[in-house]
């Protein structure tokens, strides 16, 4: 038993060099993947390719969360954005597109408006990033976060949580209302009566 504990300790100690390099390698791969995906979203003209580039960005972001130890955030990112929203986008495109290859051809004022918005956003973000004093060292990340998050949701942040759930309920009812079957025969008969 003592031997195995000592072995574990040395294992942990050996994690510094190689694991650190592997970690930075992972970071660079994921960061470049996220940026390349984001550029691809803007550049590509076919809507499905845009969606795939978005997938690359979302998955790489989830990978970055995992790398940072934010497992819950990473998993939720995968479920909600990659597995839910993106699938809905792709699915919607399939249902609504008339030709198999839909392509974007933006007009000049659309491009100009987009460029202005992006420039303002970039300036704001750069301003914030450069002005903030970042903490020098990262703190320890707790391993077990799910229970804590759940207790926060149903404890200190109960009202925002319930408000969000009511919002989602409204959205669901709206969707069901829009998608309801229209029974024309009954309406006509009512009118006739």
């Amino acid at each position, binding site marked *: 038993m003592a031997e195995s504990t000592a072995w574990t300790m040395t294992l942990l100690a*050996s994690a510094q060099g190689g694991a650190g390099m592997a970690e930075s390698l992972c970071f660079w791969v994921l960061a470049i993947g996220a940026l390349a995906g984001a550029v691809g979203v803007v550049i590509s003209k076919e809507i499905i390719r845009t969606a795939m580039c978005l997938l690359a960005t979302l998955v790489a972001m989830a990978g970055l969360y995992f790398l940072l130890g934010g497992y819950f955030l990473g998993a939720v990112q995968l479920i909600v954005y990659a597995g839910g929203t993106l699938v*809905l986008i792709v699915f919607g495109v399939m249902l609504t597109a008339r030709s198999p290859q839909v392509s974007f051809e933006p007009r000049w004022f659309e491009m100009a408006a987009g460029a202005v918005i992006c420039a303002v956003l970039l300036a704001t973000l750069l301003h914030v990033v450069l002005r903030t004093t970042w903490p020098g060292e990262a703190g320890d990340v707790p391993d077990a*976060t*799910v229970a804590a998050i759940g207790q926060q949701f149903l404890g200190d942040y109960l009202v925002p949580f319930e408000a969000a759930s009511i919002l989602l309920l409204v959205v669901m009812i709206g969707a069901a209302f829009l998608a309801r079957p229209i029974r024309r025969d009954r309406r006509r008969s009512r009118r006739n009566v």
Partner: protein
Amino acid sequence: MSSIWVPWSDRRKQYTGLRGRIVSCAAAVYRIGGPLLKRFAPVVFFGTVIVAIAAIWLFATLVMPLLHKAGWLFVVRDVIIAVAVLGLVTVLAMYCIWWERKVAGRIQSRLGPMRTGGWHGWSQSLADGIKCITKEDTVPDDADHLLFRLAPYLAFVPPVCAFMALPFGSSWVFRDMDLGLLFLLSLLGLEIIGILVAGWASASKWTLLGAMRQGCQVISYEIPMGMALLVPIMCAGTLRLTAIGDMQSGGWFTWLAFRNPFTFVALFVYFIGSLASCKRAPFDLPEAESELVGGFHTEYSGFRWAVFFFGEYAAMFVVSGITTIVFLGAWHSPLPAEWGMALGKGWLADAARGVIFSGPLWFFYKCTWFIFTHMWLRWTLPRLRIDQVLYACVQVLLPLTMVLLLGNTVWELFNSPAHPAFAGFSTVVGYLMGLVGAVLLGGFLVIAGHGWWNRRRLVGRMTVQALPGA
């Protein structure tokens, strides 16, 4: 002249120079080595196993300290495990495909693959794999080439990544996460993107229809599946898969499926949902052969086509693993694990405990049992229509899971020491549920055994005489 058919044997390409020498060398090696390999196959097999074990031992004693000094131990370990998982998934999928063909054959009064490799065609999948690799890799002209090539990997990678957090035993897990179950669900939810993209990028009506059906089906069944999983999770109080598994170490009656009536029903709801999410019959609409040619993979050939099936079988194993861990006692046998303490100490007692009471073997048995059930259902039930599939999900399973969730909440609220009368009642009901489960399992075994013992009658006398091993 060119219109005259030339036999394939005469069309063989003639190589010259260095290439010719390489080809003749390879042919000579095959001529000499092939029969030798065939003659000494058991020696080669066991020799390979012994060499592999020796190589692992040498690696552990010689290379690992060096790596440890250089600080690369964890990285190398992770790479090795990733490759091992990939190998496990591939071999698993290969043998599941072979097994599925055998089961299908038996159910349809055939023998299934019998020739390749000798004993019951055991290497049929291997031969099929080689065939798939050597086949022409076709891409339709109108297809979106990049996405067409990408799609199989999008469908294959998420289920393989899921093995990273899937525990085979309480310490047999690569990464034991606090949110293991959520992580697995998030990866299984990504698999569908590959199929949607495959259907879209092929630029064919059949593939698109298959992909749309898959999208409808998987998105709708994710909701009852997730909510059915919440029911036992509410009893367990954690998402950590190893913790959920070790809660159920007390034998058959402590398994979460038999905790109360709601978890018992949730097991079946989740099982139906998992059939739908793995696009297994009766929910195999995305690849309905008789309607859509091949569904979403109509345009695929060769290895890309095979990759879809690797992904499907990997997902089947992961889903069966989740069912096993969350509902059916994970890696514990029906006997209480405490009884294993009577075996004493020593490696022999440990091994016996691993085989009899709890260990990865039991997890593997249960998963393969679920996969067998998937196969049995696939070759027995007819395919549903898409409106029936969605009706079953939205109007039957979804309200049912809501009832289960609410009922389980109330049950667990009162199932506490503060309410001794209800807690006692709950215990009795739990044992009753366990008995019902045992009866169901017994019925399953009786029916399966009936089919097995009467298999010769099914196969027919002539076949049995021609193939005595059948």
